[in-house]
């Protein structure tokens, strides 16, 4: 069930282009509350027009990092630059940044229109211009006919769009979004994901979004920084994060993964061979890894990269082939999840698309099956 990014990749991404200067630069930022270190020596560069996701569980420091960008928290150490300007000592009301809050934080005593107009009023924009821009923004989020309502007269999805309109009306160069879809139900969330990406591409604003939902991060963002205990575990495009996780934490946090423990027995420039007690076979990977021969490593294989068959695969040389018995099948409609117990006792998760109808499926409970995967499927992770 790999989630595909919904944005089209451009030719050369800004983070690959050495001529680009980052729009947001976070340099060795640490934030401690008493003895608790919420953000620990984080450095990040985010470029103009990016849709950047900070992904992590609760307590990973992602929200604290976002609040430091908005100016609600001051870094204990390190510096934050936005558009080349050091943000130290600049209060929230003077930053070229707007934020959409997790609770939406709509002003309860003001109508939708007044809520959206609030930011423009603070800048003493002319009344006629305020009316025009508020009207245009409400049309963009399809709330024109709710302009006179109070926030408590709106549904959750409508409130979310008011909050978005309010944070975008000042045309910030950088928009921070704290769990923007957290309070919506699943169907509305999927629909809103597309809307958010469309609005972001239309306005060309840089988005930094905090989320704990890996699917949300995968579908919307150009790049993801996975955070764990205040540290960035990995930064990369959704594909990089999913296909080439650099640590066990990232591999296990994003999607599901089968982890085989093993020992490097052959270490060549074009491949490695890992002997695994866990898998009961040798694991062959068609690229070099930076671990010495004899080292103990983990090999991560995604469930959808494993093929199941009742016949021994043709031309197999005993590498990347395991055998086991099907213990559980979960039918999800588009795909099925198989839990296969290997001879070694390890349970492996396999997902396969349902190419035929359920009743015609060749593999069923207690069948003895062969699990195979291609040489590129495994990712070697050091301890």
């Amino acid at each position, binding site marked *: 069930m790999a989630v595909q990014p919904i944005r089209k990749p451009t030719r050369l991404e800004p983070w690959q282009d050495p001529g680009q200067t980052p729009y947001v630069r976070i340099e060795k930022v640490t934030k401690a509350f008493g003895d608790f270190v919420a953000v620990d020596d984080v450095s990040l560069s985010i470029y103009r027009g990016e849709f950047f996701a900070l992904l992590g569980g609760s307590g990973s420091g992602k929200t604290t990092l976002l609040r430091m960008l908005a100016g609600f928290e001051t870094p204990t150490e390190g510096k934050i630059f936005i558009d080349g300007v050091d943000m130290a000592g600049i209060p929230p009301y003077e930053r070229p940044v707007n934020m959409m809050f997790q609770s939406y934080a709509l002003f309860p005593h003001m109508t939708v229109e007044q809520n959206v107009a609030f930011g423009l009023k603070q800048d003493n924009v002319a009344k006629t211009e305020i009316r025009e821009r508020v009207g245009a923004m409400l049309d963009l989020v399809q709330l024109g006919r709710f302009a006179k309502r*109070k926030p408590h007269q709106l549904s959750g999805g409508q409130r979310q769009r008011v909050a978005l309109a309010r944070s975008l009306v000042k045309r910030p160069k950088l928009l921070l979004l704290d769990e923007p879809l957290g309070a919506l139900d699943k169907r509305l969330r999927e629909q809103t994901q597309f809307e958010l990406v469309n609005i972001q591409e239309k306005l060309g604003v840089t988005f930094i979004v905090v989320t704990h939902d890996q699917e949300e991060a995968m579908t919307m963002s150009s790049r993801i920084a996975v955070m764990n205990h205040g540290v960035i575990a990995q930064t990369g495009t959704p594909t990089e994060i999913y296909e080439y996780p650099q640590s066990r934490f990232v591999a296990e946090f994003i999607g599901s993964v089968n982890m085989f423990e093993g020992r490097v027995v052959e270490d060549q420039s074009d491949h490695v061979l890992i002997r695994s007690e866990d898998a009961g076979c040798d694991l062959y990977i068609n690229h070099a890894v930076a671990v010495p021969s004899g080292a103990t490593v983990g090999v991560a294989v995604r469930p959808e990269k494993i093929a199941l068959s009742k016949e021994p695969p043709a031309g197999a040389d005993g590498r990347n082939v395991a055998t086991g018995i099907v213990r559980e099948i979960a039918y999800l409609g588009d795909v099925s999840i198989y839990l296969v117990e290997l001879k070694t006792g390890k349970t492996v998760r396999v997902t396969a698309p349902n190419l035929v109808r359920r009743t015609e499926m060749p593999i069923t409970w207690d069948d003895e099956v062969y699990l195979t995967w291609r040489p590129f499927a495994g990712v070697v992770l050091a301890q």
Partner: protein
Amino acid sequence: MKRMGFLSWALWFGYAFLYVPIVLLIVYSFNESRLVTVWGGFSTKWYAELLHNDQLLSAAWLSLEVAAMSATVAVVLGTIAGLALARFGRFRGRTLFGGMITAPLVMPDVITGLSLLLLFVALEQLIGWPDGRGVTTITIAHTTFTMAYVAVIIQSRLVSLDESLEEAAMDLGARPAKVFFVITLPIIAPAIVSGWLLAFTLSLDDVVVASFVSGPGSTTLPMVIFSSVKFGISPQINALATLMVTVVSVGIFIASLIINRQERQKQRDEQMAVQGG
């Protein structure tokens, strides 16, 4: 059913305990007899006499004046104190400070009154102000102890107020002072109104603190009532008390009507949001 019997009995007893004395007071305000405790037939003559009793009327007026002034000052100071307690963040000794603001709530009135009297006398000797004791000193004294109540009300309202509302306003370009007046104040307005009403009522009720810090020519209504008891209660007092009870009841009735209507309106709005989503 036995349980129900006990509960309804308890209910009647409880309400009787609360309201029989007040009902009795109202009934006796229409007493013809000069003696408060002897029924002599129905009459409204004490109400008429009350209108010509200048001492009582001026005391009532003074009480209202002091109550309104001290409640207003207490609301301003109490709101500032509540804001500081709710928004200052954590610091060493926070619990101590939080407790100290509520101490005047449980401080015996006698001690509050005595200490304020000592302060006023000392101040007069040192800087010549306040010049004697009167309306000013009563107002200051009432402000002191009612402020604590207001601070507690405002603090608890602010704690339940989502802080991200203030952050959002700041994020949109409003400076902290503007955030307070445009966002925080309108949202906590009901708490401020109820704080003012509570302070007003407390000041109107007080007899102990006022007796300590009042001077000649500044006698509040409770003080007049209290001192007249020494010569036996005049039925006029009953009439006056009945009027006060009536005014307070009407006020509470109107306030609860308004609150109920707002509540119903809000429920309708929320239903509309769910259906019209």
